[in-house]
């Protein structure tokens, strides 16, 4: 049989090229109303009074008093109201919806809403810890006594997902049932949130995925908020309604990557980091939401791709009166890998050692303990991968040459990504279910996984067709609709192919055995590999069933007058187990790295007293075709026993190494240590004037 990795054309190319694919804004329903959001104009305080203008016939206000169920959006940590009942915790917090048939009228009405507040002093510094974690490994602090210490601090700022399609839903009532069609990653997150907000029975809420115009984590938990708001409006007004954000609203109020600060102290013995103490903080914004889970993924990655015997690790989520932060491809790992890769680089420099050799000396190997005393069970191919990247990029020679030339540099990052939910999430919280239905000569894939561009529709149909040895046209996979598909879990955490695909593959094997039967359905549920044991409270055990690994090399030139960074070329090697479709994986590799590089040097987002200063695509610069350089990518096969054909996670891995690699390249180019990203021309100037050599 053909190797499954050999690429095929994506099944949705045709519709997407011709403009036929239906995104949420493309749906039109007779008599559809529009919803605009009334928002706070202060960052902290209490609403004293709201005066709405007189509403014309057919216009409505929907607020917290209309929420029939619980006025809380169900996410991992439940602390975000559907509509505030009076307390304001961040600027532009949603207060109510104005709903009606004409956008111009709604805009006008919106301007006439008068709200008076009892203002309070908002908190923007990181002092209000709402989640605190601590764990150690080996002898913890005790191991550090009497050793030389090297300390550095690292900082990362916001990153915006900047999907080209903004957030949105349309919805409609059918008797006492509410149906929402949305640009979402997680149909069942939305469904469960709406059930709670409406206090409705399960069969009274239906969620359908429209074609998704990019998500990158941004459509993981945020859609639950606006889905609940819209569902409340529909159940009150009993008409179809559209709630779609314009770009400015999307930029100002949706979740972003958590800014972070990391303090590392390395304890040195025999030219090795023998012990590591880390104190990590992330800015959660006004709500906790997913921040605790983001923090734990970051903390678990604290040793990077390396083994360190003794650890003392702690971290906090700080609540501030700023827009809530949330999921973004990588989920805490990009922040930590930036910090830890720079730290290894900086410690090596202080010890006057070659940084690559220093890193290779610490590299995690098969059967080593992870930071949480789990085990890297599968072969770790990093030494070979590094060798490959060195050969292709001529890293050693360039690294040496650029030591003596100015404004040219090359950097290398080593990293991994833990595939699937952290810890026992799959087993205890998600409990993924899948169905395959055979009907005559067709096989239907019934799962809740969303194709948001990463190619799920193609790769899953290909997977099932390959196992059954039938034509891909006979395998059907429609956009998930919660009335028809079981909850196979959210489309997040690089879990879709490895975890859901693993279950689908098991189901497909059963379908194959019974293939001569006409019509039947196979139901399968996630089974956790027995060796996975993890204790969330103590951070002990196997945090992930498997790891994908990567190496990025980035070469840059910095303009000596303007300090503009010009990326010349990148070389990457990834171990993702096995590619289910090589071309799709290459697309993920390029796209992820582009986002990771831009995170490192280009994308600037900040707030001033709680107000996000970049409100459109002119202010918030993402890469254009002009910013891109040639990218070479190589894949190493290293099949994982429980993934389909050995596949592990892909989606997030490719974002993680970009920022540290570009930062190290810039560091070499300017001969000054880099401690924060993005490395903008302003920061480069500051380093050149006052930085550490």
């Amino acid at each position, binding site marked *: 049989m053909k190797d499954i990795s050999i690429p095929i054309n994506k099944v*949705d190319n045709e519709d997407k090229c011709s403009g036929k694919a239906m995104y949420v804004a493309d749906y039109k329903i007779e008599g559809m109303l529009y919803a605009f959001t009334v928002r706070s104009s202060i960052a902290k305080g209490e609403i004293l009074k709201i005066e709405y203008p007189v509403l014309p016939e057919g216009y409505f206000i929907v607020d917290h008093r209309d929420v029939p169920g619980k006025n809380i959006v169900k996410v991992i940590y439940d602390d975000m109201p559907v509509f505030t009942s009076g307390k304001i915790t961040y600027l532009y917090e949603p207060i109510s919806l104005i709903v009606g048939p004409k956008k111009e009228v709604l805009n006008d009405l919106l301007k006439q809403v008068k709200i008076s507040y009892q203002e309070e002093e908002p908190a923007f510094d990181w002092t209000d810890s709402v989640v605190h974690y601590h764990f150690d490994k080996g002898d913890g602090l005790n191991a550090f006594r009497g050793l030389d210490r090297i300390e550095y601090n690292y900082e990362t700022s916001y990153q915006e997902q900047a999907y080209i399609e*903004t957030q949105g839903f349309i919805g409609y009532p059918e008797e006492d049932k509410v149906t929402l069609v949305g640009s979402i990653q997680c149909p069942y997150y939305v469904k469960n949130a709406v059930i709670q907000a409406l206090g409705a029975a399960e069969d009274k809420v239906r969620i359908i995925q429209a074609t998704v115009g990019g998500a990158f984590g941004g459509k993981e938990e945020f859609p639950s908020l606006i889905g609940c708001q819209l569902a409340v409006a529909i159940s009150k007004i009993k008409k179809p309604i559209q709630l779609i954000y314009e770009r400015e609203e999307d930029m100002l109020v949706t979740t972003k990557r958590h800014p972070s600060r990391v303090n590392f102290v390395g304890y040195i013995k025999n030219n090795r980091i023998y012990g590591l103490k880390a104190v990590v903080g992330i800015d959660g914004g006004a709500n906790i939401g997913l921040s605790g889970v983001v923090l734990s993924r970051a903390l678990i990655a604290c040793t990077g791709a390396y083994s360190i015997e003794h650890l003392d690790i702690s971290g906090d989520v700080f609540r501030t009166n700023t827009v809530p932060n949330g999921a973004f491809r990588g989920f805490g790992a990009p922040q930590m890998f930036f910090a830890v890769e720079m730290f290894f680089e900086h410690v090596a420099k202080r010890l006057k050692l070659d940084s690559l050799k220093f890193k290779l000396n610490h590299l995690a190997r098969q059967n080593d303990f992870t930071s949480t005393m789990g085990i890297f069970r599968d072969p770790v191919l990093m030494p070979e991968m590094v060798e490959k990247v060195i050969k292709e990029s001529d890293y050693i020679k360039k690294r040496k040459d650029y030591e003596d030339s100015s404004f040219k540099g090359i950097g290398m990052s080593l990293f991994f990504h833990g595939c699937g939910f952290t810890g026992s999430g799959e087993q205890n919280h998600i409990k993924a279910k899948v169905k395959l239905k055979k009907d005559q000569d067709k096989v239907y894939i019934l799962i809740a996984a969303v194709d948001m561009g990463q190619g799920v529709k193609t790769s899953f149909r290909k997977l099932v067709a390959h196992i059954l040895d039938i034509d891909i046209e006979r395998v059907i996979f429609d956009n998930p609709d919660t009335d028809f598909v079981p909850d196979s879990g959210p489309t997040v955490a690089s879990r879709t192919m490895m975890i859901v695909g693993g279950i689908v593959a098991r189901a497909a094997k059963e379908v194959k055995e019974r293939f001569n039967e006409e019509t039947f359905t196979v139901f399968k549920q996630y089974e956790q590999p027995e060796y996975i044991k993890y204790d969330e409270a103590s951070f002990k055990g196997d945090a992930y069933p498997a790891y994908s690994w990567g190496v990025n090399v980035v070469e840059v030139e910095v303009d000596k007058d303007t300090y503009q960074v010009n990326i010349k070329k990148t070389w990457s090697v990834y171990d993702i187990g096995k590619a289910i479709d090589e071309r799709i994986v290459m697309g993920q590799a390029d796209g992820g790295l582009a986002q990771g590089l831009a995170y490192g040097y280009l994308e600037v987002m900040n707030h001033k007293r709680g107000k996000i200063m970049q409100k459109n695509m002119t202010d918030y610069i993402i890469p254009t075709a002009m910013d891109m350089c040639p990218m070479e990518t190589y894949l190493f096969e290293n099949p994982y026993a429980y993934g389909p054909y050995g596949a592990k996670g892909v989606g997030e891995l490719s974002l993680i190494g970009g920022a540290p690699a570009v930062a190290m390249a810039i560091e070499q180019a300017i001969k000054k240590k880099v401690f924060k990203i993005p490395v903008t021309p302003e920061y480069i100037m500051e380093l050149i004037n006052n930085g550490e050599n």
Partner: protein
Amino acid sequence: MAKIKFKLNGELKEIDTDPSRRLLDVLRDDFNLTGPKEGCGEGECGACAVLMNQEIVNSCSVPLANVLDKEIVTIEGFSKTKRYEVIKDAFAKAGGVQCGFCTPGMIIATESLLNKNLNPTDFEIKIGLSGNLCRCTGYNLIIEAVKIASKTGEGLW
């Protein structure tokens, strides 16, 4: 209100409406042509791109008044041509389509570029695509698609 006449995907149209409305809204709402997308609404992303007298324009930044007597081609119209087939196959072959939200605009940009320059260099391709944002692909595979189209499209442009 004003009567505006223009050619849309090969057919003559006349519409009586507010001439300051954005072409994008008129296409999507009045003609139900939803291939052009709204990504930013301010001329930055190219998701709403269409051809106006064979030149690429961002339809979100064009008031309908400017369309008077012009010829507009949207992705729906363009997708009926042989050139489209070549470009589409090139996008498939290169892997240039992910979420697809930028894709109609990218294809319009490709047509506009190849129409002027059938053998663009890498740099010329980058310039040709620089008005269209894509957050998914990192552009290289789209650049590759344009190269493939320029090779296989011999004689069509």
